[in-house]
């Protein structure tokens, strides 16, 4: 055991575990985007901006209205879920039969609206909750409780969505609608309602991610840019709409970032991850788990 630990550098182990912890939150973000894409066949370019709004929600509830974190989190999840449903109702639903490029441009427009709105309403200051969680020391390794908590909550959120999709009638309809949209009325399913519920769940996942990310990062109007692009890359690497592919890709990316950061600066981790993505797009353009037809 001792010799094993000597070979297996303790910092390497720490980086690997931190990668797994990061992967949980990235997988949560990817699941929300994948759900929307897989079910409604629309990409929410503004997904990370929903997270940004949620982070501001947490900031205001905790710092301005002095709610405890545990009371603020469910409110924010609900708020962003409603925001997701509103996004579908106001922007996506009128464009459902429009060419995909129009849908992309419309949600891209929402991205700028949300960023500008946040700049005007909240200012460009970096804000945080002012909550400092302690660090867990395991031997020579250090893990922040914020990351451990985020990982656990992200995992719980994903399990919750999995149970909902597999155990309930509505969840089964959400999985079915992507396979055959036209016959859904024959099952007594109103596709409009299913799309709205799916959008609310997608928003709710963004809200949960916001509650977790705000523990580790300051919020500002452009914070979406620091995890929006990586979420898209994860979804594309896993195969857009493929939940399991996205889950695996999230951990692959997280490990590359974390290990890259160990051997060099954290920024180099991102460079490596994006370079890996470009190479993979040549090798497996349809995603890691692409179905061969």
């Amino acid at each position, binding site marked *: 055991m001792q010799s094993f630990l000597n070979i297996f550098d303790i910092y390497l182990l720490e980086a690997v575990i931190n990668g797994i912890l990061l992967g949980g939150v990235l997988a949560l973000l990817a699941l929300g985007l994948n759900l929307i894409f897989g079910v409604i066949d629309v990409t929410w370019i503004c997904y990370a901006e929903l997270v940004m709004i949620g982070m501001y929600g947490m900031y205001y509830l905790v710092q301005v209205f002095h709610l405890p974190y545990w009371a603020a989190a469910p409110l924010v999840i609900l708020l962003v879920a409603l925001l997701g449903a509103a996004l579908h109702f106001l922007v996506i639903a009128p464009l459902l039969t429009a060419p995909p490029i129009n849908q992309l441009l419309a949600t891209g427009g929402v991205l700028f609206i949300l960023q500008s709105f946040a700049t005007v309403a909240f200012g460009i200051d970096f804000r945080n909750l002012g909550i400092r969680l302690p660090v867990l020391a395991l031997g020579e390794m250090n893990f922040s409780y914020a990351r451990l908590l985020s990982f656990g909550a992200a995992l719980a959120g994903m399990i919750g969505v999995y149970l909902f999709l597999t155990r309930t*009638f509505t969840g*089964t*309809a959400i*999985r*079915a609608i992507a*396979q*055959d949209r*036209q*016959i*859904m*009325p*024959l*099952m*007594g*399913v*109103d*596709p409009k309602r299913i799309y709205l519920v799916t959008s609310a769940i997608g928003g709710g996942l963004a809200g949960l991610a916001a509650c977790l990310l705000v523990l580790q990062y300051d919020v500002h109007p452009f914070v979406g840019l620091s995890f929006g692009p990586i979420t898209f890359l994860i979804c594309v690497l896993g195969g857009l709409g493929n939940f399991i592919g996205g889950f695996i890709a999230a951990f692959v990316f997280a490990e590359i970032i974390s290990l890259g950061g160990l051997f060099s600066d954290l920024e180099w981790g991102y460079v490596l991850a994006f370079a890996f993505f470009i190479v993979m797009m040549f090798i497996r353009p349809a995603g890691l788990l692409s179905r061969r037809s």
Partner: protein
Amino acid sequence: MTGMLELKSIDAGYGSFQALFDVSLDVRAGEAVGVIGPNGAGKTTLMRVISGLIRPIRGTIAMEGTDVVATPPHRIVSLGIAHVPENRRLFPRLTVADNLKMGAYMPGARAHYAERLEFVFELFPRLKERLQQMAGTMSGGEQQMCAIGRALMSNPKLLLLDEPSAGLAPVVVQQVFELVKRIRASGLTVLIVEQNVQQVLRVVDRAYLLEAGSIRAAGSAAELAASDTIKQAYLGV
């Protein structure tokens, strides 16, 4: 016997293409009625108009007195109309269990989910063995069973069957028509559309002949089977 489903002067089509011209037909409670005719006669369009997948240009459809045309498509199944579409249209990457669950989606059917499942298993014991299998990986005959089972999960009064024998091996076609007989025996009213005229005339009470979007003949199964035009054109005698 009272009229269950009544279509009056239905015109229907897709965009500028009209597929049905002035079609009137009725199905009485407890009956099995067939609609026969060649490929492209408008048989599938007829089924889709009844279940609301497309709306008629003109004409009325009534199910037990309720105006079907004014009912939103996803509520028509609540009127007691279950449609087994052409080519079965199962959800291929869902399990058999999930496909059956989708058939019981509407609130009225969810409450009786367990009972309906028992009923479907009685009719198709094979489905019980295949519950956890992906529907798309089953044989054509099994998929047809699953598609009919899914429709029965909604506890319908009227079952619409669109070409249940299409794409199946001859032996399996026999089995499917046996199934139709058993479904009738369980008290359901059936409207079945088929190209396999010989077989379908053996399981229905009455039939309509649909050609080029219009009803050309109607009568009891025996009358149609004996008519010269049908003998020559469809029965190959």
